[in-house]
């Protein structure tokens, strides 16, 4: 694994919005322990890239800036950024489609979700970006929302209880620039039963529920 890729920008600097976030983050750590802020700062950098370039990733230049800010060796930041899959060390599409294919989601039909993603975006394999630069499809491990399987995480939002057609609809909406409400895509509140409450029906809404 090497950082030598043509798309690496030569310079990176935090903008005003990011600086405000960083001030909040670093206030949480004692000054001599500020190296602990590396993960939040990587997120800040990734979000800033998403905001400014439409591709949420962390270039090496940004990692160097973070290392200087936290007074650690740059390699310590590279290690963290490459260890966690939430950080993209290469440019990605406008939307990052993260399909969970671990057991629960798989049993509940993640294959359909993945197939729909591929069909709607034209992506052939995991890790690729669509030709129009709109979508990057990644296979991820359990997202921890098995009760709402299968799940597609788009950037930071979970879209739950998906199937093939609804996934395609979601992607078409994203393509149009809409952001459908995250959460279950079926008639369900969070991970409550589909179609409403199934037990304790005699308890009123204002009751001791």
């Amino acid at each position, binding site marked *: *694994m*090497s950082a*030598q890729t043509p798309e690496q920008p030569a310079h990176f600097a935090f903008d005003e919005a990011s600086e405000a976030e960083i001030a909040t983050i670093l206030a949480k750590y004692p000054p001599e322990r500020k190296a602990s802020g590396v993960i939040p700062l990587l997120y800040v950098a990734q979000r800033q890239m998403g905001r400014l370039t439409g591709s949420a990733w962390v270039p*090496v230049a940004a990692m160097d800036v973070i290392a200087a800010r936290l007074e650690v060796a740059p*390699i*310590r930041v*590279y*290690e963290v950024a*490459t*260890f966690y899959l939430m950080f993209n060390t290469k440019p990605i599409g406008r939307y990052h489609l993260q399909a969970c294919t671990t057991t629960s989601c798989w049993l509940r039909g993640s294959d359909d979700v993945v197939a729909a993603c591929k069909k709607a975006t034209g992506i052939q394999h995991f890790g690729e970006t669509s030709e129009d630069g709109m979508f990057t499809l990644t296979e991820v491990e359990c997202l921890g929302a098995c009760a709402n399987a299968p799940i597609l995480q788009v950037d930071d939002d979970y879209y739950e209880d998906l199937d093939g057609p609804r996934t395609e609809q979601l992607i078409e909406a994203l393509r149009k620039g809409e952001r459908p409400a995250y959460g279950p895509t079926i008639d369900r509140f969070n991970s409550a039963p589909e179609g409403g409450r199934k037990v304790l029906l005699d308890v009123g809404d204002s009751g001791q529920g």
Partner: protein
Amino acid sequence: MVRVIVDGTPVDVPAGSSALQACEAAGKEIPRFCYHERLSVAGNCRMCLVEVVRAPKPVASCGFPVAEGMEIKTDTEVVRKARRSVMEFLLINHPLDCPICDQGGECDLQDQAYGYGSGVSRYDEPKRAVTDKNLGPLVKTVMTRCIQCTRCVRFCAEVAGTPELGAVSRGENMEITTYVEKALTSELSGNLIDICPVGALTSKPGAFQQRPWELKKTDAIDVMDALGTNIQIQARGGEVKRIVPRVNDEVNEEWLSDKGRFAIDGLLRRRLDRPWLKVHGKLQAVSWQDAFVAIARRLEGVPGSRIGAIVGDLCDAESMMALRDLMISMGSPNLDCRQDGAHYDVSDRANYTFSSGIAGIDEADALLVIGANPRHDAPVLNARIRKRYLEAGRGGLPIGVIGDMGSDPTWAYESLGAGASALADLMADGNPFLEKLKAAKRPMIIVGQGALTRDDSPVVLEACALLAETVGAVTDEWSGLNVLHTAASRVAALDLDFLPAEGGRSVRGMLSGGVDVLWLLGADEFPVHGIGPDTFVIYQGHHGDAGAARADVILPGAAYTEKQGTWVNTEGRVQRGFQAVFPPGEAREDWRILRAVSDVLGHTLPYDTIEALRERLQVGARHVTARRSAAEALSDSVLSKPFASSGASYYLTNPICRASATMQECASVHAPHAAVAAE
């Protein structure tokens, strides 16, 4: 002490020891890859598994602290089975390329696979392959062989203080890399080759040159800096193939600087392998006898006061002794070993040595560095300062620096100024750093050549002595005023009083026609072009460098690998190196040359064997009474210019490394960008 029982034998180990250390104390060998006694514990290879009674499963002994009465079993079926399983996992992705691997024959993985490896593999799936990394001109990588013990990562971060290597990515994709391709900037990078337990990091200049079992091993002393690193020269067929460090906790622990390790190709290039004599302005190859006769003819009628001798930085004590005896017998008072023009207070041996001892750094609790750049002057000593700095914890070892550090010294410091005036400022009452030094129990002051090679150095030295006294750096049980030398020969030369005698001339005085005949024993580091045009120059040495270029007679000598000799390191430790290979061609050991020429000159030296010479040799003590050299006018006031360390690249400080292609490459790779632009 804690009593633990290892395989039924009780042993006492200090509290806080690991189970592995307890097993070693009991004489049990525990296989390991990631554990290294001089690095932090990682515990990721799992090879050191042992059984602890009442523990539910085998434990990694390297990171398992001992407790009173703990019972450890190192050789049970459970342990053997566990280690076999670990070995099987390690070998899954390790290529079977031992026949073409430079580590073959000295590979931890190979050795331990004999004990714990299975003869056959159960693994049919594809093996992982990893891209090789370019870590610069010294360390070659074959990353597919890496077992990810992270010793190299820890070495860079902890010992070398240049955290450039890391483990990026995770799981199957984890790789040891610099991520952004770059040459390692450490002057200790060669040690990565030693600590890598497999063939992932090997020597780039030495790739595919030899097998370890073919090498003849000779103990010797490194001369590339004044630390006196204990080395082992490994040679085959009369050629030095490799130099590795020997363990000496009081000097170099188990590290060796890159210059000491990789300058060896310089021993084969630009060598003086036969005598030369300048006839009508051109050097001609001659016989030893003709060269001696030419010297004798030229010396005829020349009074002793018109003869001078300068010794170089790499000389052994024996040859310096022989040259001094020869010069004295010819009546010459013009002797000097200080090519850089350094001033020393030679009244007491403690005043020109690293008198606290190198191991004294481990005890220091405040440090002031004056005109030295330890990272360049002695990288291994610098690693020791860093070790102490890390051990002391945040703010535990205040370090002040007067002078220019150049590069990052790998420890945090307070800059107290650039020149001698900063010393006066420091001495002012209430200076915060002075208070820190005063508060310290064992304050240490390191004075480098940058402070000693100036016209105002006597004043600087006096100020340092006064400061040492003020802060209590020199007491009955602690001697904290240290001189860090850069020349391997210097302390021995000072011990031998290779200095201008009463009325004698120093190096500067011998230039510009100060003497008629000048004998250079491996001396190349002074302004050779300043030698007067009519001065007859005899160069005795091993490399065709600056001195030989100016010479009228060249006497080919032996390099440090080609002679037995005595060296005295910067702390005054007397150490002996042995002869690993023979000098090339007609070159001879230097003391023999001097003995032979003394015969021709009619001043026969009174010894025929090196043993007889050594009976006269009195290094390790100072017998001559003090005097301040009055040969040249010295500034009695402090000069304003900053303490400057030598401008030369770390990799090019002596004739051997200047002749080394490897060192030249390092110098160009690590050339400071600003300097390149300025040129």
